[in-house]
């Protein structure tokens, strides 16, 4: 918190950084515990359609709860839902990280 205020003085706070560049990453590249906004999917497949049907539409805020070792499935939470899936497939899930706290 104090660090953020410190940065603010120098105009280097994260909000302005966010406005300048929205970095789209694949969800599995996030660190555990991060929150992010869903931007979209790289493909239209039964898998990505099912994700949307369960509520993962662009604009949804997602939190990455845990990862499994050896590139196993990851768990995410959004709304009242917790789900797990294998992230390292061709279907990429693009998110931008949320830096507010």
């Amino acid at each position, binding site marked *: 918190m104090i660090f953020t205020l410190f940065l603010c003085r120098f105009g280097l706070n994260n909000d302005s950084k966010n406005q300048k560049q929205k970095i789209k990453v694949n969800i599995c590249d996030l660190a555990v515990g991060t929150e992010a906004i869903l931007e979209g999917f790289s493909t239209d497949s039964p898998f990505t359609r099912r994700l*949307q049907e369960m509520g993962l*539409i662009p604009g949804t805020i997602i939190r990455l709860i845990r990862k499994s070792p050896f590139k196993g*499935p990851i768990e995410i939470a959004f709304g009242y*839902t917790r789900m*797990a899936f294998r992230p390292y497939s061709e279907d990429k899930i693009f998110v931008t990280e949320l830096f507010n706290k």
Partner: protein
Amino acid sequence: MHETTAFVGTPNSGKSTLFNVLTGMRQKVGNFPGVTLEPALGEIGKKPNSNTVLDLPGIYSLDPISPDEELASSVLYGTNPHIPKPSRILFIMDATSIEKGLFLYSQISNLGIPIIIAVTMVDSIKAQGGVFDDIALERILGIPIIPVVGHKGIGLEEVQRMLADSKYFIKPNPLFANADITERILWARATTKEVLSLPQLNTFSSTLDKVLLHPIGGIAIFLSVMILFFQSIFSWASPLMDVIETLFGKMQEQVAYLLPQGIIADFISRGLIAGVGSVIVFLPQILLLNVIIVILEDCGYLARAAFLVDRFMGIFGLQGRSFIPLLGSFACAIPGIMSARIIPSHRERMATMLIAPLMTCSARLPVYALLISAFIPTTMIWGFFSLQAAVLAGLYIIAALVGLFIALLMKKTIFKGDITPFLIEFPPYRMPSLKSLLVTVYDRSKDFLTSAGTVIVTLSIILWFLSAFPRVDFPPETSSIVQQQMQLEQSYAGSLGKIIEPIFAPLGFDWKLTIGIIGSFAAREVFVTVMGQLYATDTSLGDESLRQILYSSIPLASALSVLAFYVFALQCISTMAILKRETGSWKWPAFAFVYTFVLAYIFAFATYRITLALIA
């Protein structure tokens, strides 16, 4: 008028619990001929005004991605060739997951089928300090809403009352007839905000999962749960099994006492009673295993288990969901194979079903128990591991590992394809409903008794016939034990055994063992009965005398070779029948039979030769 009401809802919504509690023991085995996947069918209400209720598999959407979802979807659209479109729907929504329920509802509303809605888990909402406004939901949707707590019985009477009268069912306003997913989700979210206020969700489950899904602690707990599961197979069921064996032994004694000695007494005693007894003796085990599996499933732990094992399953070309059918197959492959319908990918589903028979089912246990206790010494390794238990565990582990490797082989050859995405929801942990548990276990046991049971009893009778005829003239003063042995040796079964013997001779089997093996190709338990008859002991004396006789009559290498053979061989007609049903063709059960036979033969041969070499 007799109506058919379909129970529709998302997975984990408490739908099946409600179904079980409402139908009780009045569930029927689905009598839709030729159907590979069957919804549960039950009857509620008092005759003559009773109605049929249909528990369709839980679905997230009418656009299916797995075989069980396809079933539900096709029934609701009216396109299923075997199951007609229902005339009414009881829609079940989980209050803790209402957004998904509303999304599905928006699709269901376009089907034109009258609906009433039961909302479950309302107690859970209240317990977390939230509020669910069922009146508001009723106003928004225009459909009667009944809050329900399945395992406490709240709301059940009202549901039953409404199910009894079609006037309560309302045809819904079709929502978003041609909308895309995003519109529906946005509507579902907006509606959720109006009816549900919940400050924070399910912190208990999230906290518990910090332990249960911990990369190290979680795996440790999972392995402990598995060990407990198998421990129950080995030890907890045995006292009850002993009681049943003694009971049937006594019945045979009674028959010998009451009826004059002769063919009829023999048939009743060693055909009928032995046959039925060999099926009933499994019931404690099947019951116990089913109780454990249903508890793990209903409380929500199995989803976490699938998550934990997914990476490991992935090594063999399978996914976390395959774990559930394979686990069930340790009780009995029949329900195990049926539950493979939860696997969306066809290739993975096939691979899972085809290796399910290798998961050591409870029918193999009597054979293992007999041979291990007769031939493996009761020494202790390092003071506390019994060698016998170690051998038993080893047999289980070898079978499972080979099964997984076979799945990998299949995925690389006949079922080649891309890695399929694995997707599973973690429902909040819940206390399973006792009544629903009892109903489910009762049903699965009934299924086992009728399907496997009839096969086994029929086979026992046929086997008795083949071993009792042609009748032998005994020279005077032969003891009854020698009479039995002579009868058996000169019977049809004996002749058959001697003809086939050369095939199994390299494995160290003589004609008696060959008959035992052949007989068990229909049902494994038959081996013990056949051994009892061939080595002419009274089964009412228990296994002890049989064990001693076997130990002195059969060489160690042959006995171990028989054990090895049983690990892999597919000796169960019922399993083959289920495979045919689930895959739609006899090609696959035939393939399963052949590959398991080859594995069994090779393993038995290797065991025989290696044992002989080690003994020498």
